[in-house]
Protein backbone atom coordinates (compact mmCIF):
# COMPACT_ATOMS: atom_id res chain seq x y z
CA UNK A 1 0.00 0.00 0.00
CA UNK A 2 1.44 3.43 -0.91
CA UNK A 3 1.52 5.92 1.96
CA UNK A 4 -0.38 9.14 1.28
CA UNK A 5 0.54 12.17 3.31
CA UNK A 6 -2.22 14.71 3.68
CA UNK A 7 -2.43 18.08 5.47
CA UNK A 8 -2.11 17.62 9.18
CA UNK A 9 -0.56 14.18 8.91
CA UNK A 10 1.67 13.85 11.95
CA UNK A 11 4.59 12.57 9.90
CA UNK A 12 4.66 15.42 7.35
CA UNK A 13 3.94 17.90 10.14
CA UNK A 14 7.07 16.68 11.90
CA UNK A 15 9.15 17.28 8.78
CA UNK A 16 7.77 20.81 8.45
CA UNK A 17 8.44 21.49 12.13
CA UNK A 18 12.02 20.31 11.73
CA UNK A 19 12.50 22.59 8.73
CA UNK A 20 11.41 25.62 10.75
CA UNK A 21 13.49 24.53 13.75
CA UNK A 22 16.59 24.29 11.56
CA UNK A 23 15.93 27.74 10.05
CA UNK A 24 15.51 29.17 13.55
CA UNK A 25 18.75 27.59 14.70
CA UNK A 26 20.52 29.11 11.70
CA UNK A 27 18.94 32.45 12.61
CA UNK A 28 20.50 32.22 16.07
CA UNK A 29 23.85 31.55 14.43
CA UNK A 30 23.29 34.57 12.20
CA UNK A 31 22.70 36.68 15.32
CA UNK A 32 26.03 35.48 16.68
CA UNK A 33 27.76 36.78 13.55
CA UNK A 34 26.09 40.15 14.09
CA UNK A 35 27.11 40.32 17.72
CA UNK A 36 30.75 39.57 16.94
CA UNK A 37 31.23 41.47 13.66
CA UNK A 38 33.57 42.26 12.09
CA UNK A 39 36.23 39.91 13.52
CA UNK A 40 33.87 37.09 14.56
CA UNK A 41 36.27 36.20 17.35
CA UNK A 42 34.17 34.24 19.81
CA UNK A 43 34.75 34.33 23.54
CA UNK A 44 34.32 31.14 25.55
CA UNK A 45 30.57 31.66 26.13
CA UNK A 46 30.00 32.40 22.47
CA UNK A 47 32.01 29.34 21.43
CA UNK A 48 29.86 27.22 23.70
CA UNK A 49 26.70 28.76 22.25
CA UNK A 50 27.90 28.20 18.68
CA UNK A 51 28.74 24.59 19.52
CA UNK A 52 25.32 23.99 21.02
CA UNK A 53 23.54 25.58 18.06
CA UNK A 54 25.53 23.58 15.53
CA UNK A 55 24.82 20.33 17.38
CA UNK A 56 21.12 21.17 17.37
CA UNK A 57 21.26 21.97 13.68
CA UNK A 58 22.96 18.69 12.83
CA UNK A 59 20.37 16.77 14.86
CA UNK A 60 17.51 18.68 13.22
CA UNK A 61 18.85 18.10 9.70
CA UNK A 62 19.47 14.41 10.41
CA UNK A 63 15.91 13.98 11.66
CA UNK A 64 14.58 15.88 8.68
CA UNK A 65 16.50 13.60 6.32
CA UNK A 66 14.98 10.60 8.08
CA UNK A 67 11.46 12.02 7.83
CA UNK A 68 11.57 13.19 4.24
CA UNK A 69 13.56 10.46 2.55
CA UNK A 70 12.37 7.30 4.24
Amino acid sequence: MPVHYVYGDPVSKRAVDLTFQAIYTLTDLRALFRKTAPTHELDSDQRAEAGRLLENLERQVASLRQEMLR
Partner: protein
Amino acid sequence: MRCGSGIETRQVDELFINIDPIQAGGRLTPDAMKAIIAYGDGYSVCDNCRRPNRLDYITKPPIAEFHKDVAAWLNMDAARTVPGARRGFQAVSQTYVNKGDPVLVTSLSHYTEFLAIEEAGGIAREIPADKNKVVTADAATATIEKVKKEFGRPPVLAIIDHVDYQYGNVHDVAGIAKVAHGDDIPVICNGAYTVGILPVDGKCMGVDFVVGSGHKSMAAPAPSGILAATAERAAEVFRTTAIEGDVTGRKFGIKEPEMMGCTLMGATLIGMMASFPHVKERVKHFERELANNRIVMDALLSVDGTRVLSEYPRKHTMSRMDTSGSFDQIAAAHRKKGFYFSGSLSERGIRGIIPGATKVWKFNTYSITRKQAEYLAEAFVAIARENGLPVRESS
Protein backbone atom coordinates in the same frame (compact mmCIF):
# COMPACT_ATOMS: atom_id res chain seq x y z
CA MET B 1 25.04 35.15 -3.28
CA ARG B 2 21.53 36.06 -4.34
CA CYS B 3 18.20 35.65 -2.60
CA GLY B 4 16.16 36.34 -5.74
CA SER B 5 16.66 37.38 -9.33
CA GLY B 6 19.02 40.34 -9.26
CA ILE B 7 18.74 40.68 -5.48
CA GLU B 8 21.99 40.28 -3.60
CA THR B 9 21.80 38.79 -0.13
CA ARG B 10 22.37 41.65 2.31
CA GLN B 11 25.02 40.79 4.88
CA VAL B 12 25.94 44.26 6.13
CA ASP B 13 25.19 43.61 9.79
CA GLU B 14 26.77 40.14 9.77
CA LEU B 15 30.05 41.32 8.26
CA PHE B 16 30.38 44.88 9.57
CA ILE B 17 29.74 47.03 12.60
CA ASN B 18 26.94 49.14 11.17
CA ILE B 19 26.76 52.66 12.64
CA ASP B 20 24.30 54.09 10.12
CA PRO B 21 22.39 56.76 12.08
CA ILE B 22 18.94 55.59 11.01
CA GLN B 23 19.55 51.83 10.95
CA ALA B 24 20.95 51.08 14.39
CA GLY B 25 17.70 51.00 16.38
CA GLY B 26 15.80 49.09 13.73
CA ARG B 27 18.19 46.14 13.54
CA LEU B 28 16.03 43.06 13.96
CA THR B 29 16.16 40.76 16.94
CA PRO B 30 16.57 37.04 16.14
CA ASP B 31 12.95 36.53 17.24
CA ALA B 32 11.80 39.10 14.68
CA MET B 33 13.78 37.32 11.95
CA LYS B 34 12.18 34.00 12.90
CA ALA B 35 8.69 35.52 13.01
CA ILE B 36 9.18 37.02 9.56
CA ILE B 37 10.13 33.62 8.17
CA ALA B 38 6.88 32.17 9.50
CA TYR B 39 4.62 35.15 8.68
CA GLY B 40 6.10 36.60 5.49
CA ASP B 41 2.99 35.88 3.42
CA GLY B 42 0.77 38.87 2.70
CA TYR B 43 -2.28 38.38 4.90
CA SER B 44 -0.62 35.87 7.21
CA VAL B 45 -1.81 37.43 10.45
CA CYS B 46 -5.43 37.35 9.25
CA ASP B 47 -5.99 33.55 9.47
CA ASN B 48 -7.99 33.96 12.66
CA CYS B 49 -9.63 37.32 12.03
CA ARG B 50 -13.13 37.10 13.53
CA ARG B 51 -15.89 39.63 14.11
CA PRO B 52 -15.47 42.50 14.69
CA ASN B 53 -13.09 42.33 11.75
CA ARG B 54 -10.24 44.62 12.59
CA LEU B 55 -6.53 44.03 13.02
CA ASP B 56 -6.33 45.18 16.63
CA TYR B 57 -9.03 42.66 17.65
CA ILE B 58 -7.17 39.56 16.41
CA THR B 59 -6.22 37.34 19.34
CA LYS B 60 -4.27 34.62 17.48
CA PRO B 61 -1.48 35.63 17.06
CA PRO B 62 -1.92 37.97 20.06
CA ILE B 63 -2.28 41.23 18.12
CA ALA B 64 -5.02 42.62 20.38
CA GLU B 65 -2.85 42.04 23.44
CA PHE B 66 0.12 43.66 21.70
CA HIS B 67 -1.87 46.83 21.02
CA LYS B 68 -2.92 47.06 24.68
CA ASP B 69 0.64 46.35 25.85
CA VAL B 70 2.12 49.06 23.62
CA ALA B 71 -0.37 51.66 24.89
CA ALA B 72 0.35 50.72 28.52
CA TRP B 73 4.12 50.68 27.93
CA LEU B 74 3.97 54.25 26.60
CA ASN B 75 1.55 55.21 29.40
CA MET B 76 -1.13 56.14 26.90
CA ASP B 77 -4.71 54.85 26.56
CA ALA B 78 -4.87 53.43 23.05
CA ALA B 79 -2.44 52.49 20.32
CA ARG B 80 -2.51 51.50 16.67
CA THR B 81 0.20 50.15 14.45
CA VAL B 82 0.92 52.30 11.41
CA PRO B 83 3.13 51.90 8.33
CA GLY B 84 5.85 54.20 9.65
CA ALA B 85 5.86 57.19 12.01
CA ARG B 86 4.92 59.45 9.09
CA ARG B 87 1.53 57.74 8.81
CA GLY B 88 0.96 58.62 12.44
CA PHE B 89 1.60 62.32 11.75
CA GLN B 90 -0.66 62.02 8.72
CA ALA B 91 -3.59 60.46 10.62
CA VAL B 92 -3.49 63.13 13.33
CA SER B 93 -3.02 66.00 10.86
CA GLN B 94 -5.96 64.81 8.77
CA THR B 95 -8.10 64.88 11.91
CA TYR B 96 -7.24 68.35 13.24
CA VAL B 97 -5.82 70.44 10.40
CA ASN B 98 -7.97 72.23 7.84
CA LYS B 99 -6.99 74.45 4.93
CA GLY B 100 -5.03 77.48 6.09
CA ASP B 101 -4.61 76.30 9.69
CA PRO B 102 -1.26 77.03 11.35
CA VAL B 103 0.62 74.03 12.75
CA LEU B 104 3.69 74.11 15.01
CA VAL B 105 6.79 72.14 14.15
CA THR B 106 10.41 72.92 15.00
CA SER B 107 13.45 74.07 13.07
CA LEU B 108 14.79 70.50 13.46
CA SER B 109 11.60 68.67 12.46
CA HIS B 110 11.59 65.73 10.08
CA TYR B 111 10.32 66.46 6.58
CA THR B 112 7.42 64.01 6.89
CA GLU B 113 5.88 66.25 9.54
CA PHE B 114 5.84 69.06 6.99
CA LEU B 115 4.33 66.79 4.34
CA ALA B 116 1.58 65.64 6.70
CA ILE B 117 0.67 69.28 7.36
CA GLU B 118 0.84 70.17 3.68
CA GLU B 119 -1.41 67.28 2.69
CA ALA B 120 -4.02 68.45 5.19
CA GLY B 121 -3.82 72.01 3.81
CA GLY B 122 -2.08 73.46 6.87
CA ILE B 123 0.70 76.00 7.17
CA ALA B 124 3.87 75.08 9.07
CA ARG B 125 5.40 77.46 11.60
CA GLU B 126 8.71 76.45 13.12
CA ILE B 127 9.80 76.89 16.72
CA PRO B 128 13.45 77.84 16.35
CA ALA B 129 16.07 75.78 18.18
CA ASP B 130 18.45 77.73 20.45
CA LYS B 131 22.20 78.12 19.90
CA ASN B 132 22.74 74.64 21.37
CA LYS B 133 20.29 73.21 18.83
CA VAL B 134 17.72 72.48 21.52
CA VAL B 135 14.04 73.44 21.30
CA THR B 136 12.74 74.98 24.52
CA ALA B 137 9.36 75.79 26.06
CA ASP B 138 10.25 79.51 26.01
CA ALA B 139 10.80 79.36 22.26
CA ALA B 140 7.47 77.56 21.88
CA THR B 141 5.70 80.28 23.87
CA ALA B 142 7.20 82.97 21.65
CA THR B 143 6.27 81.11 18.46
CA ILE B 144 2.68 80.54 19.59
CA GLU B 145 2.34 84.26 20.32
CA LYS B 146 3.78 85.04 16.90
CA VAL B 147 1.31 82.68 15.24
CA LYS B 148 -1.61 84.26 17.12
CA LYS B 149 -0.60 87.67 15.80
CA GLU B 150 -0.17 86.39 12.25
CA PHE B 151 -3.31 84.21 12.04
CA GLY B 152 -5.52 85.75 14.70
CA ARG B 153 -5.72 82.31 16.41
CA PRO B 154 -3.37 79.73 17.93
CA PRO B 155 -1.97 76.74 16.02
CA VAL B 156 -4.34 73.79 15.73
CA LEU B 157 -1.64 71.16 16.32
CA ALA B 158 1.99 70.87 17.45
CA ILE B 159 4.37 68.14 16.31
CA ILE B 160 7.48 68.09 18.50
CA ASP B 161 10.45 65.77 18.03
CA HIS B 162 11.53 64.15 21.29
CA VAL B 163 14.99 63.59 19.79
CA ASP B 164 15.64 65.16 16.40
CA TYR B 165 17.15 63.42 13.40
CA GLN B 166 19.74 66.11 12.68
CA TYR B 167 21.65 66.29 15.97
CA GLY B 168 20.11 63.57 18.10
CA ASN B 169 19.40 66.20 20.75
CA VAL B 170 16.74 65.79 23.43
CA HIS B 171 14.07 68.51 23.40
CA ASP B 172 11.76 69.74 26.14
CA VAL B 173 8.58 68.01 24.96
CA ALA B 174 6.99 68.19 28.43
CA GLY B 175 7.61 71.93 28.73
CA ILE B 176 6.35 72.59 25.22
CA ALA B 177 3.23 70.45 25.78
CA LYS B 178 2.41 72.45 28.91
CA VAL B 179 2.68 75.72 26.99
CA ALA B 180 0.70 74.36 24.01
CA HIS B 181 -2.11 73.06 26.21
CA GLY B 182 -2.51 76.60 27.57
CA ASP B 183 -4.00 77.33 24.14
CA ASP B 184 -5.72 73.92 23.77
CA ILE B 185 -3.24 72.83 21.12
CA PRO B 186 -2.99 69.03 20.84
CA VAL B 187 0.61 67.82 20.89
CA ILE B 188 2.25 64.92 19.09
CA CYS B 189 5.53 63.70 20.55
CA ASN B 190 7.54 62.39 17.63
CA GLY B 191 9.41 59.54 19.30
CA ALA B 192 10.92 58.10 16.13
CA TYR B 193 14.33 58.09 17.83
CA THR B 194 13.19 57.38 21.37
CA VAL B 195 10.27 54.92 21.44
CA GLY B 196 12.05 51.56 21.68
CA ILE B 197 15.39 53.19 22.52
CA LEU B 198 14.87 54.78 25.93
CA PRO B 199 11.94 54.98 28.36
CA VAL B 200 9.06 57.10 27.01
CA ASP B 201 6.08 58.07 29.18
CA GLY B 202 3.37 59.93 27.25
CA LYS B 203 1.27 61.01 30.24
CA CYS B 204 4.37 62.15 32.12
CA MET B 205 5.28 64.36 29.16
CA GLY B 206 1.65 65.50 29.01
CA VAL B 207 1.28 64.88 25.29
CA ASP B 208 -1.84 63.87 23.39
CA PHE B 209 -0.06 61.50 21.03
CA VAL B 210 3.14 59.49 20.96
CA VAL B 211 4.42 58.37 17.59
CA GLY B 212 7.12 55.71 17.30
CA SER B 213 8.98 54.19 14.39
CA GLY B 214 9.26 50.41 14.19
CA HIS B 215 12.04 50.34 11.64
CA LYS B 216 14.03 53.19 13.20
CA SER B 217 13.81 52.29 16.86
CA MET B 218 11.78 49.16 17.64
CA ALA B 219 13.86 46.45 15.95
CA ALA B 220 11.11 45.95 13.39
CA PRO B 221 10.90 45.68 9.59
CA ALA B 222 9.92 48.68 7.48
CA PRO B 223 7.50 50.29 7.16
CA SER B 224 6.19 50.04 10.69
CA GLY B 225 5.34 52.35 13.53
CA ILE B 226 3.08 53.16 16.45
CA LEU B 227 0.50 55.86 17.04
CA ALA B 228 -0.57 56.04 20.70
CA ALA B 229 -3.15 58.47 22.06
CA THR B 230 -4.92 59.59 25.21
CA ALA B 231 -8.51 58.34 25.58
CA GLU B 232 -9.89 61.76 24.66
CA ARG B 233 -7.83 62.06 21.47
CA ALA B 234 -8.23 58.38 20.57
CA ALA B 235 -11.97 58.94 20.26
CA GLU B 236 -11.24 61.63 17.66
CA VAL B 237 -8.40 60.12 15.60
CA PHE B 238 -9.52 56.50 15.91
CA ARG B 239 -13.18 57.29 15.17
CA THR B 240 -14.99 54.58 13.24
CA THR B 241 -16.44 54.78 9.74
CA ALA B 242 -19.95 56.07 9.12
CA ILE B 243 -19.97 55.86 5.33
CA GLU B 244 -22.55 53.81 3.46
CA GLY B 245 -22.83 52.69 -0.16
CA ASP B 246 -25.81 54.35 -1.85
CA VAL B 247 -26.55 51.39 -4.17
CA THR B 248 -25.55 48.47 -2.01
CA GLY B 249 -26.24 49.99 1.40
CA ARG B 250 -22.94 48.53 2.53
CA LYS B 251 -21.42 49.67 5.80
CA PHE B 252 -17.93 48.90 7.00
CA GLY B 253 -18.24 47.96 10.62
CA ILE B 254 -15.69 49.39 13.01
CA LYS B 255 -13.00 50.17 10.46
CA GLU B 256 -11.20 53.46 11.15
CA PRO B 257 -10.90 55.94 8.26
CA GLU B 258 -7.63 57.49 9.49
CA MET B 259 -6.08 54.02 9.62
CA MET B 260 -7.58 53.15 6.21
CA GLY B 261 -8.99 50.04 7.85
CA CYS B 262 -6.35 47.52 8.86
CA THR B 263 -2.74 48.69 8.82
CA LEU B 264 0.14 46.22 9.16
CA MET B 265 -0.92 42.77 8.10
CA GLY B 266 2.10 40.53 7.79
CA ALA B 267 5.84 40.55 8.33
CA THR B 268 5.97 44.15 9.55
CA LEU B 269 3.50 43.67 12.38
CA ILE B 270 4.70 40.24 13.41
CA GLY B 271 8.32 41.43 13.35
CA MET B 272 7.48 44.35 15.63
CA MET B 273 5.52 42.04 17.95
CA ALA B 274 8.31 39.47 18.15
CA SER B 275 10.88 42.14 19.03
CA PHE B 276 8.63 43.88 21.53
CA PRO B 277 9.59 41.92 24.70
CA HIS B 278 13.26 42.56 23.90
CA VAL B 279 12.58 46.22 23.14
CA LYS B 280 10.73 46.67 26.44
CA GLU B 281 13.74 45.22 28.22
CA ARG B 282 16.43 47.12 26.31
CA VAL B 283 15.01 50.58 27.02
CA LYS B 284 15.74 49.92 30.71
CA HIS B 285 19.44 49.71 29.89
CA PHE B 286 19.92 52.89 27.89
CA GLU B 287 22.75 53.94 30.23
CA ARG B 288 24.75 50.99 28.90
CA GLU B 289 24.22 52.29 25.37
CA LEU B 290 25.40 55.75 26.40
CA ALA B 291 28.49 54.23 28.03
CA ASN B 292 29.38 52.47 24.77
CA ASN B 293 28.75 55.71 22.92
CA ARG B 294 31.13 57.55 25.26
CA ILE B 295 33.93 55.10 24.42
CA VAL B 296 33.60 55.94 20.71
CA MET B 297 32.99 59.66 21.26
CA ASP B 298 36.04 60.01 23.52
CA ALA B 299 38.19 58.39 20.84
CA LEU B 300 36.84 60.67 18.13
CA LEU B 301 37.32 63.78 20.26
CA SER B 302 40.89 62.74 21.00
CA VAL B 303 41.69 63.46 17.36
CA ASP B 304 42.75 67.12 17.18
CA GLY B 305 40.31 69.31 15.28
CA THR B 306 37.30 67.03 15.77
CA ARG B 307 34.13 68.56 17.22
CA VAL B 308 30.77 67.17 18.21
CA LEU B 309 27.94 69.35 16.88
CA SER B 310 25.29 67.64 18.99
CA GLU B 311 24.71 68.61 22.61
CA TYR B 312 27.49 67.28 24.80
CA PRO B 313 27.76 65.21 26.97
CA ARG B 314 25.56 63.04 24.81
CA LYS B 315 22.08 62.06 25.90
CA HIS B 316 21.47 59.91 22.82
CA THR B 317 23.57 57.48 20.80
CA MET B 318 23.06 59.25 17.48
CA SER B 319 25.50 62.15 17.04
CA ARG B 320 26.52 64.72 14.46
CA MET B 321 30.26 65.26 14.10
CA ASP B 322 32.34 68.01 12.52
CA THR B 323 35.67 66.65 11.28
CA SER B 324 36.43 69.48 8.88
CA GLY B 325 39.39 70.32 11.16
CA SER B 326 40.69 66.73 11.23
CA PHE B 327 39.77 63.93 8.82
CA ASP B 328 38.73 66.42 6.13
CA GLN B 329 42.22 67.97 6.19
CA ILE B 330 43.55 64.74 4.70
CA ALA B 331 40.91 64.45 1.97
CA ALA B 332 42.18 67.23 -0.29
CA ALA B 333 45.58 65.62 -0.80
CA HIS B 334 44.48 61.99 -0.64
CA ARG B 335 44.25 60.07 -3.93
CA LYS B 336 40.80 58.80 -2.89
CA LYS B 337 39.73 62.29 -1.78
CA GLY B 338 37.00 62.14 0.87
CA PHE B 339 36.36 58.48 0.17
CA TYR B 340 39.56 57.52 1.97
CA PHE B 341 37.73 57.90 5.29
CA SER B 342 34.75 55.63 4.60
CA GLY B 343 37.12 53.33 2.69
CA SER B 344 39.46 53.01 5.68
CA LEU B 345 36.51 52.29 7.94
CA SER B 346 35.15 49.72 5.50
CA GLU B 347 38.54 47.96 5.36
CA ARG B 348 38.27 47.61 9.12
CA GLY B 349 34.76 46.20 8.91
CA ILE B 350 32.84 49.37 9.73
CA ARG B 351 29.93 50.72 7.68
CA GLY B 352 27.22 53.33 7.94
CA ILE B 353 28.95 56.66 7.44
CA ILE B 354 28.06 58.32 4.15
CA PRO B 355 30.83 57.42 1.66
CA GLY B 356 32.90 60.51 0.84
CA ALA B 357 31.78 62.51 3.88
CA THR B 358 34.69 64.00 5.86
CA LYS B 359 33.31 67.35 7.00
CA VAL B 360 30.01 66.77 8.78
CA TRP B 361 28.56 63.32 9.33
CA LYS B 362 26.38 61.36 11.71
CA PHE B 363 26.71 57.99 13.38
CA ASN B 364 24.78 55.88 15.84
CA THR B 365 26.27 53.33 18.23
CA TYR B 366 22.93 51.95 19.46
CA SER B 367 22.91 48.21 20.17
CA ILE B 368 26.58 47.54 19.51
CA THR B 369 28.43 45.56 22.17
CA ARG B 370 31.14 47.03 24.40
CA LYS B 371 33.72 45.03 22.50
CA GLN B 372 32.44 46.50 19.22
CA ALA B 373 32.50 50.00 20.75
CA GLU B 374 36.14 49.52 21.72
CA TYR B 375 36.96 48.19 18.27
CA LEU B 376 35.25 51.20 16.70
CA ALA B 377 37.11 53.63 18.96
CA GLU B 378 40.45 52.05 18.11
CA ALA B 379 39.63 52.15 14.40
CA PHE B 380 38.96 55.92 14.38
CA VAL B 381 42.18 56.59 16.25
CA ALA B 382 44.17 54.24 14.01
CA ILE B 383 42.86 55.95 10.85
CA ALA B 384 43.80 59.34 12.30
CA ARG B 385 47.33 58.19 13.20
CA GLU B 386 47.81 56.43 9.88
CA ASN B 387 47.12 59.75 8.16
CA GLY B 388 49.35 61.83 10.43
CA LEU B 389 46.58 63.52 12.44
CA PRO B 390 47.56 64.42 16.00
CA VAL B 391 45.79 62.30 18.62
CA ARG B 392 45.71 63.22 22.30
CA GLU B 393 46.45 60.36 24.66
CA SER B 394 43.48 59.56 26.85
CA SER B 395 44.01 60.40 30.51
